[in-house]
C-alpha cells in the first residue's frame, strides 16, 4: 500500500443543534474537528452535559449533524439516506452503552447473535459458533443460555461488548460502558476493550469520567461545552 488507509472517523466543523426552528433551539456541539485513525484507542472525557454522548451518536450514525462533514472510513455520510446509514452502522460500527444494553427477551448467546442474525436473515450454525466464540472471549460461556436480565451488571456489559464485536466492526463506540460498574468489573470491561483493540485493530472511542482508565488509552480528547479542547496525546 502506497497510501495510508483513510481515518476511521473524520469530523470537520460538525455542529449539532436540538429543537431546530423552535424557540428552545440549542446548539450542543459547536464545530467539532476530530480524526480517529485505524487501531486508535481514544478516551473521551469532559463534564456532564458537555456533549460527549451527542458526539458519539453522530459518529455512530444514530443522529445527523446539523452542519459539517462526517466521514466513516473515508465515506462521506452527509448524503446517505436512512437505509445506507443503517447498513454502514450495522457493518462497521459497534455500540456499547451505559445502561439497558441487552434485549431482555433473549439469552446472553442470542443477544450476541442478534446483529449476525439480522444480517443473515436466518439462524445457522456459523452464526451460533461465532457468537459462542465471542462470548467465550469475554469469559461468559457458562452463562450463555441465561436470560439477559438474570446476568449481573458487569456480565451484561461484557455481553454487550461481545455483541458489539459480532459484525467485526472497524469502530467501537463505548459510551461510559464502565460508569455503572464497580472497579473490578470496570477494569475487566476496559481490559476487554483494550485487548480487542490490540488483537483486532478495532478503533475505539471510549467515553469515561475515570482518569485512571483514560490514562491507559492511546490519546484523550476533552469535550467542554460542545467543543474539543486541545487534547494531550499520551503514548504508551
Amino acid at each position, binding site marked *: 500500500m502506497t497510501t495510508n488507509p483513510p481515518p476511521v472517523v473524520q469530523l470537520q466543523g460538525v455542529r449539532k443543534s436540538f429543537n431546530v426552528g423552535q424557540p428552545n433551539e440549542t446548539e450542543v456541539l459547536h464545530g467539532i474537528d476530530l480524526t480517529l485513525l485505524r487501531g486508535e484507542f481514544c478516551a473521551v472525557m469532559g463534564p456532564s452535559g458537555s456533549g460527549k*454522548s451527542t458526539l458519539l*451518536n453522530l459518529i*455512530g450514525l*444514530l*443522529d445527523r449533524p446539523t452542519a459539517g462533514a462526517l466521514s466513516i472510513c473515508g465515506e462521506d455520510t452527509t448524503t446517505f439516506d*436512512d*437505509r445506507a446509514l*443503517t*447498513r454502514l*452502522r*450495522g*457493518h462497521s*460500527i459497534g*455500540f456499547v*452503552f451505559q445502561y*439497558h*444494553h*441487552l*434485549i*431482555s*427477551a*433473549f*439469552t446472553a*448467546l*442470542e443477544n450476541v*447473535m*442478534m*446483529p449476525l*442474525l*439480522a*444480517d*443473515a*436473515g*436466518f*439462524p*445457522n450454525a456459523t452464526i*451460533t459458533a461465532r457468537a459462542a466464540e465471542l462470548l467465550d472471549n469475554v469469559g461468559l460461556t457458562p452463562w450463555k*443460555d441465561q436470560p439477559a436480565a438474570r446476568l449481573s451488571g458487569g456480565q451484561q456489559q461484557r455481553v454487550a461488548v461481545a*455483541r458489539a464485536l459480532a*459484525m467485526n466492526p472497524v469502530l467501537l463506540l463505548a459510551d461510559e460502558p464502565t460508569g455503572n460498574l464497580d472497579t473490578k468489573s470496570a477494569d475487566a470491561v476496559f481490559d476487554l476493550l483494550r485487548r480487542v483493540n490490540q488483537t483486532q485493530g478495532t478503533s475505539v472511542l471510549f467515553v469515561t469520567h475515570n482518569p485512571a482508565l483514560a490514562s491507559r488509552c492511546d490519546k484523550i480528547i476533552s469535550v467542554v461545552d460542545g467543543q474539543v479542547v486541545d487534547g494531550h496525546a499520551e503514548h504508551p
Partner: protein
Amino acid sequence: MSLTTSPQLSRWLPFEWIVALRFLREGRMQTAFIIGGVAIGVGVIVFMSALLSGLQGNFVKRVLSGQSHIQLLPPKEVVRPLRQKGTAVEGAIVQAPLQRVKSIDQWQSIAAQIRSMPDIKVVSPAVSGSALVLRGDASRSISLNGIEPDLYYRIVPMDEKMVRGSARLASTDMLIGTELASDLGVGVGDKLRITAANGTDNTLTIRGVFDLGNKGANTRTTYVTLRTAQSMLGLAGGVSVLDVTVKDVYAAERIAQRITLQTGVKADSWIKTNEQFFTAVSAQTTVNTAIRFFVALSVAFGIASVLVVSVVQKSREIGILRAMGISRGQILRVFLLQGGLLGLGGAVAGSMLGGIALILWQTLATNADGTPMFPLTFDPWLFVLALVLASVTGLVAAFAPALRAARLDPVVAIRG
C-alpha cells in the same frame, strides 16, 4: 416450534419471526389477554356461521328430499278482459277459470331437449290430478300422481320412504301414505276403488304405504304408474309435469330460467318456490356479516392497543436494535408480525372455542327423542377463513404501531 420451549433458535424462522415471537412470549399477560379477546370474537363468529349454514343446509335437505329442483308446468288458463280495439275494457270483472289437468305440449321433445342440456341429472314426466278414493261408506279426496318409477325414484327415493310393502309399481298398483291408510283402515294388498273427476273408475291394489314426513302429504298423496294416471285423468300420452333435478341445487334458478328461455315452457325452481325462506336466510346473512365486521373491528382495536403499549415498553430495545444495524423495515415487520400472530393465535383458540360450542350444541340442543335439533356440518373452510381473516385483521391493526416503532428516533429511544 422449539422457540417457545428451548433456548435453541429455530433454523427455519427468519430473524423477524424470531424477534416477534420472543416479544410476544415475553409479554405473557398482554399476549394471553388479547388472544383470549380475539378468541371469543372468532369463536362467536364460527359458532354463528356454522349454525346459520346448518339451519340452511337442513332446510334445503328437507325440502329437496321430497321434491324436484325444477318443475315444468303447462301454462295456467287465464281469461283476459275483452277489449275493444285494444283500449277500452268491455267486461271488467273477470272470473278465474277452472283449472283442468292439461298436458305440456310436445313434452317428449322438451324432455329430450332438457336432458341434453348441461348440469341436468334427471328429467321425469308425471301426471297429477285429483280423484276420489272410496271404501265402504268412506270417501277421501286424493291427489293422483302418475309417475315413471325408474325416473321419479331418482328424484324422490320412495324406497327409503316406504313403511310397509314395496315401492314397485305395476299398472294396477298404487302407493298410499300412512295417514290415508289408517283413515281408511287399509293395508298392503287391499284394493281401493278410485274415481277420477271425469267419472273414470278403477280398482287398484295397495302395493306399499309410505311416510313423506308430512301429515298433509301422507293423507293426500298417492302414486300410480304414469300410464294408469294418464288413462284415468283422460290425458292419454300427455304429462302435466316435468320434474327436473340438477347437479348443483343452488344453480337451479339459473337453469330454470335457461329452460324457460329455450323451451318456452314455464320452469320454476325450488329456490323460487321457497323464496320466503331464502329472503330470511339472506337477511340473516346480512346480520351475520355486520356482526363479523364489528367483531373484526374490535379485534383490530384490541390488537392495535396492545401493540401501541408494547412499542412504548420496548422503545429502548428498539433503539438498541437500530443501533445494531437493524433496519426500519425489519422493525416494521417485527411488529406487523406480532399483530398477525396475535390474530392467528386468537383465531386458532377461537376456532377451538367455536368447535367446542358446536359440539355442545349438538349434544344439548336436541329434539324430544334425543336426536340433534339439526345436524351441523363442520366446514373446514369456515375455520380456514376465520384464520386468514383474523391474521389479516391483526396485520392491518398492527400497521400504525409498527410504523411508529420503525420511525422511533434511536437516540431518543436509547436515552429513554
